[in-house]
């Protein structure tokens, strides 16, 4: 790709549920990002959003509702139903096609207007088999965690360690939802929601409205001193029925390989400075680290224990606190990308990593036991 796409600016809401009107929130964030980037509503080329009708207050045709608030009036726009990294890559495609110079990318999910996540994830099921058994994402994750422990000896302490690390990191993140210092014992003693998953190992339900302005290379350089460049993307989806899959050999390695190849990355652990991964269930951070190539199969727990994924480690994972600290289901991919963006620009405040951050990885997942994954690589 000779023509690069840059992320120019980001604006986002914190994760705590609020009683603000949803449209007001979307308007505020859209306006903020346009003002910060210096691109007017008239000039923005296209608007691509991510939202989901189930994680959207029961409002169907989701982007109809926030079209005006999301600066899209009389614009050529579109929407991805599912995960927000899909919206990001679609916006990148629209700019790379040459049809647009700039794009506004939105991820919208107002947790306070939705029932608990598992009421909604229950509807990912087919009506014939899995729905009659009552399957939801937490049950699928519990079955996956049990396999992970049985087959590779991952311990409860290692899983709890992810929670301790991420919630500690979240203390330095003004956008995080959960702000609580917790110790291993707190996590291990928390209530069992779906054995072997404990309450503190499961992500909350959060608010998350986020916007980004993307621009083609020459324009990005004019709009900001420090554009963050899109380097590569990969995504992949696994089969549908839980019983047809090996829950520990999913599609993340495929998605990651596509992203690494596009970005020219051969040794991820060395070449990536920070990784924001989507870990709605604590053990999944360990599993995803293996899939991303940061360590071998079954070694995720040891990797955590070594401190390699800590703030000062070789491959810091989730300095933002990750999804365990803030979980707006649909927008969480863009929040991962935003953290990478801020870290590269040196704008991550209290949680800015000491080392020079040049390349960041953002990961998102949705679907039962990580059925679908997307990975984006950005760099300075």
């Amino acid at each position, binding site marked *: 790709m000779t023509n690069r796409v840059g992320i120019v600016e980001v604006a986002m809401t914190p994760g705590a549920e609020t009683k603000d009107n949803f449209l007001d929130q979307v308007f505020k964030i859209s306006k903020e990002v346009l003002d910060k980037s210096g691109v007017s509503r008239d000039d923005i080329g296209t608007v691509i959003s991510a939202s989901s009708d189930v994680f959207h207050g029961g409002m*169907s045709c989701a982007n109809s509702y926030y079209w005006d608030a999301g600066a899209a009036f009389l614009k*050529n726009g579109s*929407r991805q*139903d*599912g995960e927000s990294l899909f919206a990001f890559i679609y916006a990148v495609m629209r700019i790379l*096609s040459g049809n647009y110079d700039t794009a506004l990318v939105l991820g919208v999910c107002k947790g306070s207007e939705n029932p608990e996540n598992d009421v909604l994830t229950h509807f990912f099921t087919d*009506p014939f088999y899995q729905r009659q058994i009552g399957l939801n994402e937490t049950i699928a994750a519990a079955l996956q965690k049990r396999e992970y422990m049985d087959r590779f000896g991952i311990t409860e302490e290692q899983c709890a360690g992810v929670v301790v690390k991420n919630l500690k990191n979240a203390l330095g993140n003004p956008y995080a939802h959960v702000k609580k210092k917790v110790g291993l014992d707190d996590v291990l003693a928390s209530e069992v929601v779906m054995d072997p998953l404990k309450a503190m190992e499961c992500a909350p339900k959060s608010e998350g409205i986020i916007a980004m302005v993307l621009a083609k290379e020459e324009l990005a350089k004019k709009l900001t001193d420090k554009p963050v460049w899109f380097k590569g993307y990969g995504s992949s989806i696994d089969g*549908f029925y839980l019983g047809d899959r090996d829950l520990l050999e999913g599609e993340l390695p495929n998605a990651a390989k596509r992203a690494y190849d596009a970005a020219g990355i051969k040794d991820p652990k060395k070449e990536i400075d920070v990784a924001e991964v989507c870990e709605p269930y604590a053990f999944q951070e360990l599993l995803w680290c293996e899939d991303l190539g940061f360590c071998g199969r079954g070694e995720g727990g040891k990797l955590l224990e070594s401190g390699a994924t800590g703030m000062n480690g070789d491959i810091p994972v989730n300095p933002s606190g990750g999804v365990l600290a803030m979980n707006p289901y649909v927008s969480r991919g863009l929040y991962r990308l935003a953290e990478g963006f801020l870290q590269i620009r040196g704008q991550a405040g209290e949680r800015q990593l000491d080392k020079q951050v040049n390349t960041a990885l953002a990961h998102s997942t949705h679907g039962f036991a990580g059925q679908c994954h997307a990975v984006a690589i950005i760099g300075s």
Partner: protein
Amino acid sequence: MGRPVAIIGSGQTHHGRRFDVTYPELVKEAVDAVFENTGISPNDIEGVVSGTMPSMMEGVALTHFYFAEVLRSVGKPIMKTETCGSTGISLAFTGYYWVASGMADLVLVVGSEKMNEGDSQATMTTVVEPFYQRYFIAGAPGVFSMQCQEWSVKFGIPEDKVRAAATRLSIDHHNDAFDNPYAHIKKRLTPEEVNNARIITYPIRLWDVCPNSDGACAMIFASEEMVKKYGLKPAWVKGVGYSGEEYWFGDSEKAIWQCAIDAAKQAYDMAGITNPRKELDVAEVYNPFTYQEMLYYECFGFCDFGEACDLVLKGVFSREGELPCDPSGGTLCTNPIGATGLNRAAEAALQVTGQAGDHQIPGAKLSLAHAMGGVDQYNGVMILGSEK
């Protein structure tokens, strides 16, 4: 405009009330059909785009999970596009941009719907927010009736003329559908039947409205390299346009329908079209309502504002006319919402590649495909041509 992109094949299911199959089996029919029609191996597909109406329709959310296998997407990148009724054309745009960007050379696009498994009007009511408008906007027909009234009053078109023109369209399209093996409702109607049919929401009557159809459509988008590789007749994407208006119904007029005008203009500018009625050979307009179809003719510049009824009655837009519109029968005869916009693109592609069989418009080289969505909120237009 980016690198050239073409549609090199499509597949449709038999649309209708499909209680003989589950939803994934229905999608599989269309996907199997496109691979059979083109001879392309599913393994060569580099990306898949899927889309349907929102989960309230069939009661399954994020259906790309459910359809992963039948979409042939396991192990591949997937995208899921949804923009209400305009989903079908937005799906086509996603496929187009994926290839135009250079990020893939061969993309499968699939739209689907199983309307009869849910309550479509109840679903459409959930598009409306619960604060102000939901009590008043229950289902689609009411909204389009209001639009029709607005239009006919604004341009001073006598009621009986509008009725006569709408009836002409209904009879023509339901007739045309007999020559489309995939269409849902095929019927020989008389003017008396159409004029006296049961009222849905005045002035719209039963035969002015689309059915609830189950169906799916699959399509393959290809780069120039792939067009050469497979040697299939290409329908080149010459222009794309899309626009969305205010969410709140009543914020702007719908007779001179700005987003429809803008969508067409964007597409015409890209394709270099200045006189659509002369330059287009066939138009697959999204026509769930006969009345609204005439509005599109005006907004797309096929004729002046207020003129459509006269031209319809003269037969200008019939199969033998100057600009045949919806020779497939259109949305009026077949409406599986998530697929419908894509069906328009599939039909438009079949026309310019000479593959439309019994409803082929002879010598068609340039066609238009269109879809509308939301509460009169979105319009999308795609121009396809036999020349690059």
